[in-house]
């Protein structure tokens, strides 16, 4: 818990645009990373002597490598459309949390050093020098952005604050001002293989314990295999799924679905992390390093499918970036040996990578899973669209599939489902408040304030529809909600994985029954075929 005292926002009946309270969230930002965490990533620890030159040079480098950064810095007309769209602004009232004002911390410096108008008429165009105060503001306010991209949906030019925020964090890292939370975690992910720093033996023990527990509870030998070469599916899931609540109930759900499908699958101890914090700090190279572990695991384990568990930004990196970073995907050109080496191994009948929701949804569509929906009858469920899934990815290859598929899976296993207010879900979803590298206790104030808009929409369906369960498919959302729900007088256990709901309702074939079941299925198929033959 942060030492600073602050008020927890009250939940209004509807969300009002707050009056501006300048500098109310001014501060030192999250804990900074020391040498031990900075150096392994190739960054200096602590502000370097010639930080200003280094920063300006890095800005120039980034804008020459990312069209997004260059175009977004030049194109904003300050129309104000985004000013009321950020959950951190709505929750904190600090004008620097308005997307355009956050970007302007970076843009004003860009103008001062890179544009004609800013070099010669800085006052006129709002160009500012890069000084200590500005860098402090960068560090503070670019760590009050969860890179959720809600503002981008509403921008007439699609200007994406996440891109600016990532660029700013990369500049900060380059001059030695890294964030402890992200960079410490990256160190673990890149050496041990997961964000928790869980080595292979510990992971193996955990999974064995889980197998015992599940067999005891459900009477079926559901396996959680690790490093099994030649498996069909390699599952890449956030490491929180191995330990944290409620995440682990989601993992049990995946295991049950795999078991019921009868497919061979495995986890990898080398690539035991779906989350990729390289995206949060904006570094292409570090993000790629993390992604390369998955490529290596897929090649070493000779799998034909790569699947991703419930994790928001992991799915963004997997869906949108893996093909680029490491060739996990399809459609490489014929001369592209690097990507083809892997893509030729992967089964092109399936989307690569595939989301666990897509997989479960497909099995449900094909009638391969049976459910007792009454198991979830005490629940009235609503679904929180996690920002990265909602705004940066797709599922099922149909337009809006990322909204449709999770809801269809929930409806297949629950009788009571309601949506939250339309302006707070789907592409306009409000972030949980903990994404983008903010899920650390030293940022608790902004996490709670930023959660307010989501909590408000939840309160509405709780009051009106009796919602008592909030389902999500993101490890960060789950952890964040567990922490912030009680601050707003909700039950902290109301947040669940979608696959926890699946897990509760799924009817598992018991070992002996399994044989009978498959026989009766064969009989049923035979009967259908006979009938069809007759009609013909």
């Amino acid at each position, binding site marked *: 818990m942060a030492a600073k005292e602050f008020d927890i926002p009250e939940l209004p009946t509807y969300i009002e645009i707050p*009056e501006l309270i300048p500098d109310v969230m001014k501060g030192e930002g999250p804990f900074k990373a020391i040498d031990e965490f900075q150096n392994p*990533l190739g960054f200096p620890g602590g502000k370097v002597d010639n930080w200003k030159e280094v920063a300006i040079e890095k800005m120039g480098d980034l*804008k*020459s*490598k*990312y*069209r*997004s950064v260059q*175009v977004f810095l*030049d*194109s*904003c*007309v*300050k129309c*104000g*459309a*985004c000013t009321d769209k950020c959950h951190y602004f709505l929750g904190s009232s600090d*004008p620097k949390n308005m997307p355009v*004002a956050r970007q302007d911390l970076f843009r004003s410096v860009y103008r001062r050093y890179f544009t*004609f*108008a800013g070099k010669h008429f800085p*006052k*006129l*165009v*709002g160009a500012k020098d890069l000084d200590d105060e500005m860098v402090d503001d960068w560090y503070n306010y670019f760590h009050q952005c969860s890179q959720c991209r809600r503002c981008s*949906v*509403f*921008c*007439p*030019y*699609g*200007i*994406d604050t996440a*891109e600016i925020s990532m660029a700013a964090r990369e500049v900060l890292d380059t001059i030695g001002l890294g964030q402890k939370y992200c960079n410490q975690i990256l*160190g673990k992910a*890149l*050496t041990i*293989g997961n964000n928790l720093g869980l080595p292979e033996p510990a992971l193996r023990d955990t999974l064995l314990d889980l197998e015992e527990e599940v067999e005891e509870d459900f009477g079926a030998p559901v396996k959680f295999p690790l490093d099994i070469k030649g498996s069909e599916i390699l599952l890449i899931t956030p490491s929180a799924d191995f330990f944290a609540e409620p995440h682990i109930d989601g993992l049990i759900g995946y295991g049950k679905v795999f078991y019921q499908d009868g497919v061979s699958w495995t986890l990898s101890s*080398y690539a035991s992390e779906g989350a990729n914090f390289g995206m949060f700090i904006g570094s*292409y*190279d570090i993000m790629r*390093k993390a992604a*390369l572990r998955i490529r290596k695991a897929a090649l070493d384990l000779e799998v034909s499918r790569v699947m991703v568990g419930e994790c928001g930004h992991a799915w963004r990196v997997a*869906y*949108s970036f893996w093909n*680029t970073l490491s*060739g996990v*995907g*399809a*459609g*490489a050109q014929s001369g592209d040996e690097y990507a083809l080496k892997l893509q030729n191994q992967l089964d092109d009948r399936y*989307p690569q*990578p595939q989301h666990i929701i897509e997989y479960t949804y497909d099995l449900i569509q094909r009638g391969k899973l049976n459910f007792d929906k009454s198991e979830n009858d005490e629940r009235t469920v609503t679904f929180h669209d996690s920002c990265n899934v909602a*705004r*940066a990815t*797709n599922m099922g290859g*149909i*337009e*809006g599939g990322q909204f449709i598929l999770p809801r269809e899976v929930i409806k297949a296993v629950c009788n009571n489902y309601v949506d939250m207010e339309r302006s707070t879900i789907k*592409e306009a979803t409000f972030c949980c408040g903990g994404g983008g590298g903010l899920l650390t206790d030293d940022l608790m104030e902004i996490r709670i304030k930023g959660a307010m808009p989501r909590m408000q929409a939840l309160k509405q369906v709780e009051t009106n529809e009796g919602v008592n369960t909030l389902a999500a498919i993101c490890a960060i959302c789950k952890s964040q909600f567990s922490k912030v729900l009680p601050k707003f007088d909700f039950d902290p256990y109301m947040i669940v994985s979608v696959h926890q709901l699946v897990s509760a309702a799924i009817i598992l074939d018991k070992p002996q029954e399994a044989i009978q079941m498959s026989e009766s299925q064969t009989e049923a198929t035979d009967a259908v075929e006979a009938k069809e033959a007759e009609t013909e």
Partner: protein
Amino acid sequence: MSLISIIFTALFYISLFIFIVGMGRKIRQFWITPVPLKIPIAPTPLTQTGAIFKMIREVTLFESLFRSNKWIWLFGFLFHFGLLLVLVRHLRYFIPGDLPEIFLLIQPFKYAAFAMIIGLAGLLVRRIFVPRIRYISAPSDYLMLLMLIVIGVSGAIMTFTSNHTDVMMVKAFASGLIVFDWTNLPTEINFLLHLFLVLVLLAIFPISKLLHVPGIFFSPTLNQVDNARKKRHISSWALKQEKENTVKLEQTIGKDE
């Protein structure tokens, strides 16, 4: 030719030169800057056709802005659409000789000037009175609106009041600029102000927020197709890095390889 005519003739070519060279350089910069990652923003188009239609809707209807804020959309749309019609009507001055008959049909476009002025006034009022927008405004943001308002009002005064300017003389001057047959221009203050500010606008186009005009077409969030899993997307610098194997797992970090 009068001195004032010589000055304005020179200003025209200077502004036009700055505009063309400046925009050319800027567009080239946007063009050659790589796009390393797929970052389309929801609602994302899954096909190239879908992406083209999305861009057309954004450029002609301001779809995202409509979703975002109805007032800004209304004023913004009135201004831009009015400006478009007014610009089309202005073509008459730059075409030498008799006009094609089509120009009779677009005569009523002159009323679009009011849409333009109302839109601009609305945007200015919001910029001054909505605290959030005032907070993010620099002096140039107000100046830009004021300049456009003065252009619009001075133009409307010439069209709709008795302060007409000699349009035949304007036509001779303007079309003369195009065919390098220079003549004198009318010297009413309204007209000179109108023309001067238009030339200033042309000159500052490549160094101001007016860059949103080319910018929108290059915006990766708007113009990308959402097909990252189906087709490998890789930028020039990333491909070079991949080929030369400069990012290795064992580099800096990774005692485990």
